[in-house]
């Protein structure tokens, strides 16, 4: 089997970043007693770390073995569910209407599951992975709404671009179109532009945490919502791509992890300070 050096480098970088995240979380857990948000985040990151280690080990120990459903898929499902559970705890105090978000995420998830099943012909993995991804997407979209992370126009643009990319990915993946150039011209640049925009929003949200001292809890929640939205978008882009674009999005997936880590740790610090002052704790 040929070694894909870009893929290997990307996975090793992700291992380093996630291991750093795990090392940062453990002392915070000791400091803040037993915070369920940190426990969930720790579990999510350990799942991601073990999934990467498993993937590299499998490539070395059993290079020709590719299974329809493997342990690294279980790890991915676990990571997404734990991240979604952490978001559920962070935002559970805020109520809002969620009918439209539920419909949009269900439609997007079904669209993705159908695409993956037809593309790879692997049913169990894609259905289970799609359900967990859809649940994480729902929690992220809900957290965006609860924190007003994006204004109405931004949200409409993001949803429209997402569905356009999803629709364009069908002819590209199934090679249904006679001229594949048209979807290819729009497909990757659109996804890349939105990825860069999500990174910009995440940087701005995290900068607010370091610059402003008022409304710290709200700002932390908004930073969490924005960075997890970026994660969801990057993963969606990676899952509908292959080759070099996949490696680029996989690399971006690693780069967004420190943003999530920083904003969650900041949120926990503020929560701890508020609890010590006698404020409400999550």
């Amino acid at each position, binding site marked *: 089997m040929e070694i894909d050096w870009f893929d290997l480098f990307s996975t090793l970088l992700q291992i380093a970043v996630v291991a750093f995240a795990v090392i940062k979380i*453990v002392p915070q*857990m*000791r400091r803040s*007693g*037993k915070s*369920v948000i940190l*426990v*969930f985040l720790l*579990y*999510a990151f*350990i*799942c991601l770390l*073990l*999934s990467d*280690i*498993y993937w590299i*080990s*499998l490539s*070395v*120990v*059993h290079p020709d*073995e590719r*299974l329809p459903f*493997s*342990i*690294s898929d*279980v*790890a991915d*499902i*676990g*990571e997404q*569910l*734990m991240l*979604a*559970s952490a978001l*559920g*705890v962070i935002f*559970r105090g805020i109520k809002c209407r969620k009918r439209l978000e539920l419909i949009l995420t269900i439609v997007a998830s079904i669209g993705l599951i159908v695409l993956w099943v037809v593309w790879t012909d692997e049913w169990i993995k894609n259905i289970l992975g799609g359900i*967990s991804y859809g*649940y994480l997407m729902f929690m992220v979209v809900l957290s965006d709404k609860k924190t007003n992370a994006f204004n109405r126009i931004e949200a409409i643009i993001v949803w429209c671009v997402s569905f356009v990319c999803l629709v364009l990915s069908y002819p590209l993946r199934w090679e249904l179109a006679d001229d594949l150039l048209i979807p290819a011209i729009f497909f990757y640049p659109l996804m890349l532009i939105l990825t860069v925009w999500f990174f910009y929003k995440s940087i701005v949200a995290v900068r607010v945490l370091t610059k402003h001292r008022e409304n710290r809890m709200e700002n932390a929640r908004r930073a969490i919502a924005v960075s997890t939205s970026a994660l969801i978008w990057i993963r969606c882009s990676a899952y509908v791509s292959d080759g070099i674009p996949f490696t680029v999005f996989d690399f971006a997936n690693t780069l967004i992890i420190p943003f999530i880590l920083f904003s969650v740790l900041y949120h926990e610090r503020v929560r701890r300070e508020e609890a010590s002052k006698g404020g409400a704790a999550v």
Partner: protein
Amino acid sequence: MIYSENILVCIVIPLLIAALFNRKGTRRFLLAFAIGMISCLLSAYITGYVQFLTGITPEEMSAFYSPILEEIMKLMPLLFYLFVWSPKTSSFFSAALGLGLGFATFENCCYILSYGAENISYVMIRGMAVGIMHLVCALALAFGLTSARQFRVLSLPAVIGSISLSMVFHGLYNMLVSKPGLSSVFGYALPLITAVAVYFPFRSMLNREAESGSKETKP
């Protein structure tokens, strides 16, 4: 061929009788140990059945799929205990440890009876690696479940997320030891290294729980 049911009966009966003569904490541990062994036998049945249905080779089954089935079989009694009796965190951890140890012990018993125990160094490596691996998996599962319960967020995603971690750890170990060579050395060392890394945070957590428990009972 070995008669694993007979071995199970032979080990479990003295344990159950010993449980009658012990106090609550020890009895809980002994019962969890026995249930762990029963879970191991049941997971072996299911693994064999799935292998028959799918036509996967025993080596592939052991390396790639049995971790999923075995961890689900370990989760079932723990979830039952958690939801029906709502035990204290320390009691739950004790039950999880007993379950993991029982599972590992029965697996090792059957393995040694099948393949012999002439090579003491290999038996020791296997005993330490498999025993500790099941222990670490059970602890990871128990920690995730108790954390979620403590903050009243014990939902299906949290349960699946917790079990995923133990499945992945178990799967990584099985895959690494499935071929001889450097990878199996890493595989055998993995549970021990993880247990050492987990030991100190785990002890401090249990001490904190004990301190908060004693504060609550003081008038």
